[in-house]
């Protein structure tokens, strides 16, 4: 079932290219040391792939433990303290170790230079540093986990986080270091986009994934420092008791929430924007169409990045925030919805009169569209201030953000992974098992999280260890769905790993895509290109396939 290169008309650049480049970036240098000290953005991307996938696996184990604990209303497999620690670790691992670094770290590093015809990112050493910051942050956080872990929730709300006796500071410090890694990546991407575009690639001809990464990087650079200082203040308060958020000394716990969400709301867009960018690429490739409304999609990424900064107050509607601020943040939250709507409509329009190949990555695109649509609409419903009062801190919110993050980001991540896998490793995976995995994930996801919307409506607050018995049936449904979801992930993992050994060579362009990154060989050589490609057309321009418009 692997795509046969012969039946797809090769893009002009592919003609005469070898099916599998024997001496490529993976084997040009050998030995562990060459990996640990590599400055090659592609190898750094692969390192991120290994690290963040491990984090996803770890976070997934925590998630399953949580769902099993919630299978019955009373205690099931663990104590309340263990439960509190588990959901904290689930959040911290998934958000700081997987969601935020994954797509920029893996696909951004690997493909951003390829997509703008550059030989590397602007600062390769900083790029390697970001991997080590990731490892350091993860190690510090892991140290905290082994020594019991925090029980604060990933939001670290004061005064709980400053008074709890559990190990909070390693988690805070770990998140701080991970944030530094995130800043370095973002800074690197912005400078790369500004200075290293190949001749012919103007700002308005960059692939849309690059636009999404650019917008993401702006958020990373401008929001992460505020998280840094906030976590630092909590750590100082936890260890020394300076009283900055301590109500007994005149401090204001709500100030913490303002500062925390000033980062953590835009962080949602750090997670979802790169996924949106990847989806744009995959969708165009499999519909074999130019992206409808290139400018609108590109600018909506920037719009999300900027407006997304000023919606943080919608996390504080029930915190005692003023009605005036609630109104401002409520309206601004609506505007973020508009930018997402622009993307969804343009994606849909891209499909119109396309030639749609239903392959594994495209199934993830469809899943992504559904999840983002539903998650986004419920997000707007949540921003409708009066409704939020009922839903705030209930399972409705849990379901909403899992729709965006698991449904959106993870589906985007898997779409990108299955789309670019042949380019990264030069091998094609089993299409049949790819589709099985994608279907299991789609179904399992819906079974896990749709019941949680209803639980939220019923009024079940989040982070509940035990619950009144009327919430029981829906919790059972959710846990059952989660096991299907977990099975789906295992199928995907096995399919991809087996392809490395048994997969056929994929060829330089197995999907017949006109994205700029497919102009090089699979896997790419060490310096990205054997000869510098030229960029005479927009990305994903399939116009030359038209009989009347032949040539290029």
């Amino acid at each position, binding site marked *: 079932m692997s795509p046969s290169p012969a039946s797809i008309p090769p893009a002009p650049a592919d003609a005469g290219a070898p099916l599998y480049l024997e001496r490529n970036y993976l084997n040009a240098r050998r030995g562990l040391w060459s990996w640990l000290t590599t400055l090659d953005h592609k190898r750094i991307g692969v390192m991120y792939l290994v690290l963040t996938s491990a984090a996803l696996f770890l976070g997934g184990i925590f998630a399953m433990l949580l769902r099993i604990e919630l299978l019955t209303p009373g205690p099931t497999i663990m104590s309340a303290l263990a439960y509190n620690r588990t959901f904290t670790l689930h959040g911290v691992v998934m958000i700081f170790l997987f969601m935020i670094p994954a797509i920029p770290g893996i696909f951004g590093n690997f493909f951003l230079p390829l997509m703008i015809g550059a030989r590397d990112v*602007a600062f*390769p050493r900083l790029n390697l540093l970001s991997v080590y910051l990731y490892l350091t942050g993860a190690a510090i956080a892991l140290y905290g986990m082994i020594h019991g872990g925090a029980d604060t929730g990933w939001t670290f709300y004061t005064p709980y986080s400053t008074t709890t006796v559990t190990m909070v500071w390693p988690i805070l410090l770990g998140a701080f270091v991970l944030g530094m890694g995130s800043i370095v990546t973002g800074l690197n991407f912005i400078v790369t986009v500004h200075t290293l575009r190949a001749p012919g690639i103007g700002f308005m001809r960059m692939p849309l994934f690059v636009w999404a990464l650019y917008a993401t990087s702006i958020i990373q650079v401008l929001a992460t420092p505020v998280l840094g200082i906030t976590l630092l*203040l909590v750590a100082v308060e936890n260890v020394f008791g300076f009283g900055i958020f301590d109500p007994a000394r*005149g401090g204001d716990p709500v100030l913490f929430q*303002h500062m925390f969400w000033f980062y953590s709301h835009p962080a949602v867009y750090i997670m979802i924007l790169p996924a949106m960018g990847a989806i744009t690429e995959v969708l165009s490739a499999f519909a074999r169409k130019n992206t409808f409304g290139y400018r609108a999609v590109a600018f909506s990424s920037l719009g999300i990045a900027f407006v997304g900064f000023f919606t943080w107050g919608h996390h504080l509607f029930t915190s005692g925030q003023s009605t005036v601020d609630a109104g401002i943040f409520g309206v601004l939250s609506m505007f973020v919805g508009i930018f997402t709507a622009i993307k969804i409509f343009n994606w849909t329009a891209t499909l119109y009169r396309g030639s749609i190949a239903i392959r594994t990555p495209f199934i993830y695109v469809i899943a992504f569209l559904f999840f983002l649509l539903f998650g986004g609409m419920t997000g707007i419903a949540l921003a409708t201030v009066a409704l939020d009062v009922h839903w705030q801190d209930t399972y409705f919110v849990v379901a909403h953000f899992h729709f965006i993050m698991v449904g959106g980001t993870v589906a985007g991540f898997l779409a990108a992974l299955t789309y670019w896998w042949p380019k990264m490793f030069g091998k094609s995976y089993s299409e049949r098992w790819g589709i099985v995995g994608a279907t299991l994930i789609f179904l399992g996801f819906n079974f896990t999280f749709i019941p949680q919307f209803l639980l939220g409506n019923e009024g079940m607050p989040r982070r509940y260890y035990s619950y009144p018995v009327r919430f029981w049936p829906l919790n059972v449904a959710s846990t059952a769905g989660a096991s299907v979801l977990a099975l789906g992930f295992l199928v995907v993992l096995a399919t991809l790993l087996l392809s490395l050994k048994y997969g056929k060579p994929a060829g330089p362009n197995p999907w017949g895509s006109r994205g700029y990154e497919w102009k090089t060989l699979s896997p790419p050589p060490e310096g990205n290109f054997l000869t510098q490609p030229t960029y005479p057309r927009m990305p994903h321009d399939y116009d030359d396939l038209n009989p009347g418009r032949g040539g290029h």
Partner: protein
Amino acid sequence: MPAAESHVAHHFPDLEVQSHAARLGMWLFLATEVLLFGGLFTAYALYRMLYPSAFHGASRLIETSMGALNTVVLITSSLTVALAFHYSRQSRNRLAALLLVATIGLGFVFLGVKAVEYAHHFREGHLPGRFYRYAGLQVPGASMFFTVYFLMTGLHGIHVIIGMGVLTWLAVGAWRGSYGGDYTTPIELGGMYWHLVDLIWIFLFPLLYLI
């Protein structure tokens, strides 16, 4: 200039693009620093709004003349580091190195003055949060002023120390003639960092000492 060409990394077309990239990267880094301090400025602004007279009273407890002296010291150090960059461009490396050493010296003066102030606060009990024990001013928010004061000046002090470390490294390089002529990017970036430290202080001084 072949000597300068060797400083161009393989993925940059020429030195000009590379210095442009380095400068833009540095500005982005400085933007993160601005937002890092922005969090503390937010805390300051909120608590000052909530406790205006406590902040006013507590601000009297810190010595304006010390702050003014430190402002002059930092402004002067900014001048020396700017001149170091200027002479480095003219390849007068020894002079540039000496100016960098002067900057580091001024950094030590700044830290010395700060240490004298801190020692005074420790003696008097002008301390943050639960450590506050100054009997002369017991109103809600007084300890909060010192919480903010110590956090802001402390974080700023850490930046001064880091900046001095960077400048030491640059001074050694300048003395050895590693920079000069068209290749002065490290001194330029190090200088920008030092100017930012100055910049933050320009705001800390009126907010903490002059209210």
